[in-house]
Structure formats: C-alpha cells, structure tokens
C-alpha cells in the first residue's frame, strides 16, 4: 500500500493545474486535516493556509462538513443504541459454550500468544506504571544517565518512512543536487570503499571502488572516478563484480546500496518478518528485520535519530554470508560545484566487458522472466501510487541497459522537475529497474543538440514514441503513452444546451457543471485505459510468472482502477440523469436485445470484462461529450445519444461489480479460459 502523502498529486490533469494554481488542492487540505501528510508537508500546508484566506476558508468548509457528518451519524443511530443492551449476556453465553467446545489451545499456541502479547505490550507508548513500576524507575534512572529520552520512539514503518522522507527533503534543499557518498562495504573477508556521485535528476552516477586490506590500508584502486570496468585494476574489478553478484542475489540495488527506499521495498515484500527497533545512545536508531523469506535472513538499517539519514546497513544472507555497509561521508552538493565530466557516459559498455578476459560473469543476464515480471509489477504499483498511469507519457520496456543486465526500463517525459523528482523517489530502490525520465525541457534541449551530442538516447526516442502504436499482448514493450483521453473539442452545439440553460441559468454555473462532468468522464476513460493496459499485459501466461503475493498485488491494482471508475460512472450517471427530460426518455427502456450481456456470458475471464468495460466507457465518453460539450458534429439524433449513454451506463453498472468481484477471488491462478 502507498502512503497518501506520496499520492497527494492528483491525476495528471490536476497536476498540470496544480503547477499553475497557487492554491492548495482539496485533497491536500483534507490529507492535512486527517494527519496523513508528513510533518514537512503538513508544515508547508500550515504556512500556506496562514497566508491564504481562500485556502483557509476552504479548509474551514471541509472541517464543517466533517462535523456535519459526525453529527448526522450520531443523530441517525442514537435511537437504536438502547436496542443493543441485551446482546452482551447472550454473547457471553455463546462464548462460554464455544470455549467449552473448542477447549484450551495447545501449550505452544499459548506461549506464542503470550510472546506476541508481550511484544505488543512493549510497543505501547503510555506505560502502565501499576505493572512495571519498578522497571520504570530503573529505566528513568538509566534515561537520566544517557539522555535516552531525547530519541523519539518510532515503529519500523515510521523509521523507514522518515528515512525516505529525509532523503527526498535533503535532495530538495539544493536546486541541482548531486549526492556525494562514501561507503565502506565489507563482504566476508573483503572490504572496499566506494565513492559515489549520483545525479538523481539526470539519473547519472559515477563510482570509484578502492580495495582495502587490513586496518584500512588501500591496496588497489582506480585512479579517479571511473565508470568503465576496463579502467579498473583486475582486483578491484573482481571485487566489484563479486559485490554486485552478492547484491543481485539478495535482490538489492548496487546503484544505491544504502537506500532506505530499497530496504523499505524489501521489507514490505515480506509476508512474515520480525522487527526490532533499538536505539544506540541518543544519536542512532536501528531497525533489525528477521525473516525466513528470500535471500536475506536478517537485515538491519541504522539511521541518525536527528534526521533519520541512514548511515549503516547490515545484511545476513540465508547462505551465511554477511554484508556490512557503513557510510563514511555524505553530502548534497550543487551540480555547479563538481566537475560534470565525471558523468561522461561510457562507450559501448558491453563490448568492453565482453573483451575482458575475466572469469567473473558480471554481465551475465541471469535475471529470469519471473524476476523481470516481479520488478515490472512493482514499477507499475509505484507509478500507480503516483497516479502516473492515467495518461502520462511513461512507458516500460524490458531491455539490456548500460548496467549490462536485463532490466525493466522506465522511460518517459514528465511535465516538471518536481514531477520528475516525485516519480524518481517513488521508483527508487526497485531492483532491476533503470530510470530514464526527463522533463519536457530536458527532452527538448536534447532534441536540439546535434545527434553526436545526445547522451541519453532513450529519451528523445520516447518523445518520438508518443504517437506509437498501442501495446498489444505480451512483447518486450509496454506502451503507456498516447493514451491520454482526448481533449474535448468544442465543435458543435451541445445537444443538452437547452436543458443546461434551464438547469443552470448562470453561464458560470453551467460551465462549471459541464467541465466537472467532462473531467469525470475523462478520468473514467483514463481508468479504463489503465485497466485495458493491464488486461493486455497480464495474460494467463504472464500471470503465471508472478508469485502469489504479486498476483494479489495485481488484483489490488485492478480493483483500485475499478473502484475509481465506479465512482466516476456513478457521478456521471447522477449528473446526466438530472438533465434528462421526459421528452428524451420517451423512447422507454432499451430493448432486451440491446442490453449488455451479463459478464458471465459476455466474458469468460477478467480480461474479457475489462475489454467490455473499456468499450462501454468509451461509449459514455463519446455520448456524454456530445450531449454536454458538443464535440464533433452536431448530433442529428440526441435521443439516440441519450439512449446510447443510458445503455453504456447500465452496462458498466453490471460489469464493474462483476469485474471487482472476479479479481477479489483467486481469478488469476485459474483463468476460466486460457485461450483468450
């Protein structure tokens, strides 16, 4: 699941608006009121509201509505509370009967429960002095000695969230940031220091690896910051390759070894894990996670308690190996202060590597289709969390990029540097993924360069691919561009013009009604496109590549789109129905032959329903736009358009719950029709 603070950007259209609009969105105000923003974001909202009367008035409006809802709820249920008084004794009787029937749980279960209870108890911030009076006194004495209470107590998820926020905030402190980081990495008996210069905006990185032996003595190194393996001494290259292989085995990012996002992604992927958050004095907090799943048996991440910046990570793999990462230095530098030549692209990496007579299979494309599919799904989830799957120019490829291993490549063009940073932050840490995102400005400046100067060749290509063909069924490219719902073109008189004028005599109110309805229809189209892309991408064969957990994630992703689409359709139905007059409805209910077929007969699996949903949403879009906004040619038969719209809405009313229900079951494992 995703943090709402990550989702504060609304759909792409609203993003564009937000960039031009100095005011806070309703969503930002509501998230702030609900305490769902990070401390930094909440502070920004407070600062804005303090200076902006318009936003303050809107916030008060939202607060009033919240108060009204609670008031209404209390009024609604108050008379019925007395009716529930007899239930307790009946429940106690039933419980006693059940307990007598079931009996005491086995000893091991009681021990397990007691252990969990103790663990849970240890998490409670309000200490119960009656129970632990003496330990409290002792603890306070200890606190007074160590000033331990200055360290905020946090849960595992809070620690990881804060660490990620810390990273993002630090990057925002400089206009064109470059992350400088020096790490000491120990893998078994081998120790290296790694110096990294990372350009998060341009997605470039320069590394230097020094092999260290004994008490920090440097035995071998490349002379400067180099990116080319052929420039490395053999010993360093071997160490580099072995470390990369270790990281790869553990599904970790070698690009950013100390990334909290990476740790968080691994952490969230675990179904069973045990956490332990401890403090070291007042300066550091450590999260230790133990699990029996995957390649990592135990991992710990240590952050500074002052700003949650990660400074160390310790990994114990299931095969007994241990990797320790310690940060020796870290800074955010302005791009102007460094020599950008260190980011010079390496020529023909693969050729260079293949020419090396080394025995280390560094560039072995060892990734399986399953691993790529899992990585791709994680990318889709991250993009979805940022609402970037609703028409933004972002596409996914499976390819062999500069790193030499098959990866999922995320390329695309986004509107602003802020949007790019948000997406990079959301995608950071997902293994086997290469990011090639650019702003429109960056893409344009590259297109204006002579061909020989173009360095990130993928991005201009992405720009040209905006009009590419839609991606159809499994291949190596997942096209997410060119699907933005078409903008409404006002070319004729809306068929509902008279009804609109009667209902909304004021032109301003009329325009607001039409615009909001058209936005809803367009959002519905964007959701339908997203569903269609998922339907095209996830054939039964592709689904089989996914783990059970990932299949559930995919189901959640589909349900999310269905949920929003249902809300859109409901709202469009209410809005349009309010304009229907008896004259328009004279034709009566649609004949049975015109009614949409039931999902059971019309579609034998979820992908079939998705296609039906898509075509019905398109009908809603076409007819609602024609009736309300007068798109295309003036309608010769408005009644027919109304009927079409009614049919499409009725079809969606049946199909969307069916789709939601079908993906709520283990539908992905057992498609009813594999031949589809």
């Amino acid at each position: 699941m995703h943090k709402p603070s990550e989702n504060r950007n609304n759909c792409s259209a609203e993003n564009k608006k937000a960039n031009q609009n100095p005011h806070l969105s309703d969503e930002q105000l509501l998230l702030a009121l609900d305490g769902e923003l990070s401390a930094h974001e909440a502070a920004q909202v407070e600062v804005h509201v303090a200076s902006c009367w318009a936003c303050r008035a809107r916030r008060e409006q939202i607060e009033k509505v919240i108060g009204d809802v609670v008031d209404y709820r209390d009024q609604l249920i108050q008379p019925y509370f007395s009716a529930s008084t007899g239930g307790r004794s009946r429940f106690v009787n039933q419980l006693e009967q059940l307990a007598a029937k079931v009996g005491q749980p086995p000893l091991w279960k009681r021990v397990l429960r007691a252990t969990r209870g103790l663990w849970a108890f240890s998490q409670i911030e309000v200490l119960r002095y009656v129970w632990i009076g003496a330990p409290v006194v002792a603890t306070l004495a200890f606190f007074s000695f160590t000033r331990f209470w200055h360290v905020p107590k946090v849960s595992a998820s809070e620690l990881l969230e804060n660490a990620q926020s810390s990273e993002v905030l630090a990057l925002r402190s400089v206009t064109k940031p470059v992350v400088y980081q020096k790490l000491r990495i120990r893998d078994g008996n081998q120790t290296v220091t790694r110096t990294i210069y990372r350009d998060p905006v341009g997605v470039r990185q320069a590394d230097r690896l020094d092999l260290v032996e004994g008490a920090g003595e440097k035995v071998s190194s490349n002379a400067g910051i180099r990116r080319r393996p052929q420039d490395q001494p053999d010993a360093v290259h071997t160490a580099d390759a072995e470390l990369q292989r270790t990281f790869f085995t553990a599904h970790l990012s070698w690009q950013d070894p100390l990334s909290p996002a990476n740790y968080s992604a691994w952490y969230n992927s675990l179904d069973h894990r045990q956490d332990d958050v401890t403090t070291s004095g007042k300066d550091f907090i450590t999260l230790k996670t133990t699990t029996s799943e995957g390649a990592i048996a135990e991992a710990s991440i240590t952050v500074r308690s002052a700003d949650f910046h990660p400074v160390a990570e310790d990994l114990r793999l299931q095969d007994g190996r241990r990797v320790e990462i310690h940060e020796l230095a870290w800074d955010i530098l302005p791009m102007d202060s460094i020599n950008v030549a260190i980011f010079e692209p390496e020529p023909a990496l693969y050729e260079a590597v293949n020419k090396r007579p080394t025995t280390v299979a560094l560039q072995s494309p060892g990734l399986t289709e399953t691993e790529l599919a899992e990585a791709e799904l994680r990318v889709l989830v991250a993009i979805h969390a940022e609402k970037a799957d609703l028409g933004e120019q972002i596409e996914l490829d499976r390819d062999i990029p500069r790193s030499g291993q098959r990866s999922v490549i995320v390329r695309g063009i986004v509107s602003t540097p802020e949007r790019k940073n948000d997406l990079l932050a959301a995608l950071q840490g997902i293994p086997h993924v290469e990011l090639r995102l650019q702003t429109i400005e960056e893409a344009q400046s590259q297109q204006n360069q002579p061909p020989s100067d173009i360095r990130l060749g993928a991005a201009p290509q992405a720009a040209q691919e905006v009009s590419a063909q839609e991606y159809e069924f499994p291949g190596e490219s997942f096209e997410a561009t060119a699907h933005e719902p078409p903008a409404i073109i006002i070319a004729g008189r809306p068929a509902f013009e008279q009804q609109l004028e009667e209902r909304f005599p004021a032109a301003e109110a009329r325009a607001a009604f039409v615009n909001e309805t058209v936005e809803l229809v367009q959002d519905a189209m964007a959701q339908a496109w997203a569903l269609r892309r998922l339907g095209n991408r996830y054939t039964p064969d592709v689904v089989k590549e996914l783990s059970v957990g990932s299949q559930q994630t995919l189901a959640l992703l589909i349900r999310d789109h269905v949920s929003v689409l249902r809300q859109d359709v409901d709202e469009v139905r209410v809005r349009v129905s309010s304009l229907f007059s008896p004259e328009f409805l004279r034709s009566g209910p649609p004949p049975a032959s015109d009614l949409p077929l039931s999902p059971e007969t019309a579609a034998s699996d979820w992908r079939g329903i998705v296609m039906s949903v898509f075509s019905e949403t398109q009908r809603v879009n076409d007819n609602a736009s024609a009736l309300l906004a007068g798109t295309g040619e003036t309608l010769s038969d408005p009644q027919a358009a109304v009927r079409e719209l009614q049919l499409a809405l009725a079809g969606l009313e049946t199909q969307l719950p069916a789709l939601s229900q079908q993906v709520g079951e283990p539908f992905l494992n057992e498609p009813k029709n594999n031949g589809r």
Partner: protein
Amino acid sequence: MKLEGRHILSADLCVPPTVLGQEGQSTLKLEERITQMYDELHEPVYRYLLCRSASPVDADDIIQETFLRLYRHLNAGGREDNIRSWVFRVAHNININELKRRSHLFSDAPDEVSGLEMSQADPTLGPEELFLRSEKMARIHAAICTLSEQQKQCLYLRAEGFRYREIGEILGVTISTVAESLRRAVKKLIMGSHA
C-alpha cells in the same frame, strides 16, 4: 455515547490497551479477554454497522459472530497486532454478505431520517432552531445518499477514527483509493450543503 474510536487505542498498536493492561498478558483466560474486547469495541462496531444499513438486531448478531470468530482466531494462535481493524474488517464482510443475502431491514431513507430527527430533537431547542436543525439534517442526508457505497464506507470508518491505511486494510483497497474516495465524498457533501 463515547468519543471517536481512535481514543480507545494506543498509537500504532490496535489492541485495546485496557484489555492488555488488565490482562497482564497472560493472567486472564482468552474468554475473558474476548469479553473485554467485546465491551470496548461493541459500541463503535455497532455504530458502524447501523450506518451501513444493518438493523439493530442484525448488528448485534454480526457483532456476536465477529467476536466468536475472533475467539477462534486467537485460540488458533492467530496474530493480534491489529485487533480493532480485524474486528471491523470481519464485521464489515459479514454485513456485506448479509446484505447480499436479504433485503435491508434498516434504511437511511429520507422519511425515516426526518422522523428520527424529530424524535431525537434536543428539548432545549426552540421551534425555529428545531426547524433549522431538521432542515440541515435533511440536507446532509440528501448529500450522503448521493455517495457511492465505498465513499460512505470510507467516511464512516474515518468517523470511527481509523487512519487511511487501516481503512484500506478493512475494505481491501489501497490508501490512494481511500484518499480519493474521501476527497470525492467531502466534495459532494460540500456541494450538497450549498444546494
């Protein structure tokens, strides 16, 4: 009536602290712990179920079934790190299944609400204030009737003090969907209040 459900629980651990505190982790039998949890959570769950179209009798039955399932769950060594969300999730699902199985016995139709409103009017209010309050309730009711089921569910769960993450877990949707549903619900309610 108690305050919002959130006050019952500690920050991130959703097992009622009073239950844990009184139990002392192991001294109470599981039946007694379940009974205590029932006492603490009955009211908010009952309130939620009534808002979600369950009749008082059905709501009591659903709560009993939920806590009997909770007993079986804990007796089988199930996790107890978020009991409150667990209880709401199970009660929500039982209610959905019940609603599918039979027609609603309790509806939030406007007529019932206005009758309800009059019967519960504050005796200290004068006739004009009574009328204004009644008007206001009818307006809110009309606006709430325009919300989708999911928007209502999110709204009432939020009113019970659940965080977006917990609402997502209870309803089986992502946090972004919860945020979007609440945003739309609030927007509709604001529009309704101006109607």
